[in-house]
């Protein structure tokens, strides 16, 4: 089969690999029909995530058709069209049995601090991902769901992470009616978080970024007020001014480890790998939320330390909420919202890239070329 393969920082190529095998009775092998590149894949691509090995196939957002099932699989059969959440989870451990699927204790031998994620380094379990023609899906009776007949495949692939994560981020904000919600980052997760904040009754939604084309999308897609932080000496002061010097009730960090806004923070994390991530957006979130407010962290950070302004968070009495999204738990409600026309996730898709050209796709996404927001990967574009 053809698969994307990591060759070292900033380098990937497509190689011929063996089709994955059933390794556990509850495995399924899925033939991938559509995948996506996630912003967090760029942390792997840039070599920031420890234990990212040459030869690994990335990709934790994918949908496809069941090609083979293990002996104990009861809920899926060959030929089923399935969407697969980015979390790999057993469904039976202490955490899964309470709905914390992203914190599963039975799927990641390499680390206890994070669950299993497809194609996301050995720190997240060492599973190959879906930017390929086939992928091994563990716990097939627990993770995947059938794609509803009425659902567009591009909407389905965005439900496997980006939409679910943005929606989850808004939930962690504990938004109440009339709240002012500020979102740092107008990438896919930020756009979906902003859109979801309205569903939860926000009175005002503000999105901050430095890419004007993404802010335009935040205005048209997410109905948000926008600020380009490059236009202000101090974006925190600007947000205070915009909120009557009160601060936002809820701030969502939808940027994560490679936040811009400070050359030193960015270079020390992205280039020199001395931090788990550049906490610029997180620090802005802490500073621009009101006292007693809530900061929801959806941006992905590496496992190492980062220079976070924790003292301000303490002194302001903030609630900091965060987790990897337990994706499947969000689906029933999100299916309703899509069906009701409240959400149309595929509206943010800007590029559809054949697997054979995935190296160009990563470069464009990394360098933010051609007004890219969400690139999809088509394994069999021919």
């Amino acid at each position, binding site marked *: 089969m053809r698969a994307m393969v990591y*060759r070292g920082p900033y380098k990937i190529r497509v190689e011929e690999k063996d089709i994955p095998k059933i390794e556990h009775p509850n495995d399924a092998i899925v033939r991938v029909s559509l995948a996506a590149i996630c912003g967090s894949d760029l942390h792997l691509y840039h070599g920031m995530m420890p234990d990212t090995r040459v030869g690994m196939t990335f990709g934790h957002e994918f949908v496809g058709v069941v090609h083979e099932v293990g002996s104990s699989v009861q809920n899926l059969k060959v030929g089923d069209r399935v969407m697969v959440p980015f979390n790999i989870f057993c469904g*039976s451990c202490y955490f899964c049995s309470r709905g914390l699927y992203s914190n599963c204790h039975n799927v990641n031998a390499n680390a206890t601090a994070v669950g299993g994620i497809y194609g996301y380094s050995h720190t997240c379990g060492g599973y190959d991902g879906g930017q390929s023609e086939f992928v091994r899906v563990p716990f097939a009776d627990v993770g995947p769901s059938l794609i509803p007949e009425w659902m567009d495949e591009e909407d389905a692939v965005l439900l496997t992470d980006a939409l679910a994560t943005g929606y989850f981020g808004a939930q962690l904000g504990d938004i109440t009616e009339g709240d002012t919600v500020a979102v740092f980052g107008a990438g896919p997760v930020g756009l979906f978080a902003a859109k979801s904040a309205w569903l939860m009754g926000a009175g005002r939604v503000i999105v901050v970024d430095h890419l004007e084309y993404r802010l335009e999308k935040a205005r048209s897609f997410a109905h948000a007020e926008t600020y380009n932080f490059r236009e202000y000496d101090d974006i925190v002061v600007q947000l205070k001014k915009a909120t009557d010097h009160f601060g936002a009730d809820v701030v969502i960090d939808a940027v994560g480890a490679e936040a811009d806004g400070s050359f030193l923070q960015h270079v020390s994390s992205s280039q020199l790998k001395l931090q788990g991530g550049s906490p610029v957006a997180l620090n802005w979130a802490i500073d621009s939320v009101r006292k007693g407010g809530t900061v929801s962290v959806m941006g992905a950070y590496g*496992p190492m330390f980062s220079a976070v302004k924790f003292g301000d968070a303490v002194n302001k009495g903030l609630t900091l909420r965060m987790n990897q999204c337990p994706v499947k738990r969000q689906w029933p409600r999100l299916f309703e919202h899509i069906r009701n026309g409240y959400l149309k996730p595929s509206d943010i898709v800007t590029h559809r890239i054949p697997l054979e050209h995935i190296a160009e796709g990563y470069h464009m996404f990394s360098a933010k070329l051609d007004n890219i927001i969400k690139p999809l990967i088509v394994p069999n574009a021919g």
Partner: protein
Amino acid sequence: MPYTADKPQPKESREQLRARIPGWGADLDPKDRPSYPREQPGIETGAHWDFPERQPESWPRELSIEHKFLTPVFGTSTPPSGFSGVMRKYAYKYSEGRAAHWLILLAADRVNAWESHLRSFTTLRPDNPVTETGVLSEFSGHGVGSRFGRKRADLSHQWLDPVVVGAPWVLAGAGAVAALRALRLRRRR
């Protein structure tokens, strides 16, 4: 507004927001939100086991020392090999709470990349920094127009990307040239 007990009010009323935003307030009640409350004991997951069957271990699998035992299911992508593999196995002697664990793994990642680059030169498909970096999309993706005149914050550090990618190749090339020159000089003598 002076600093009083009042909270700043949104400019738009509930009705105005509902008219402007499709689905506004559909999840106003926290009970309609799927991750509320955070933990939902007994949630239906589809698991038909108390503890999963164990996946066979085909090589001594790296394991966080914070785990009690090897997890019943684990990834089998890219087993450790070469010197980077030795480093990785050593890193797993430290817990996730120790910087040594992560720093050794990051160092092993760099070693792994170089092992692979060198190994690729013994194959029919050596690494090609032009195709593998996807840099040709600078032409199809409007590299110049996408960057300049747009107030982008990332331009301050993007110039470092080719340095990170290219410097080791330049250094390796310079080293090879220096080695060849030294060899020639020795032969002439």
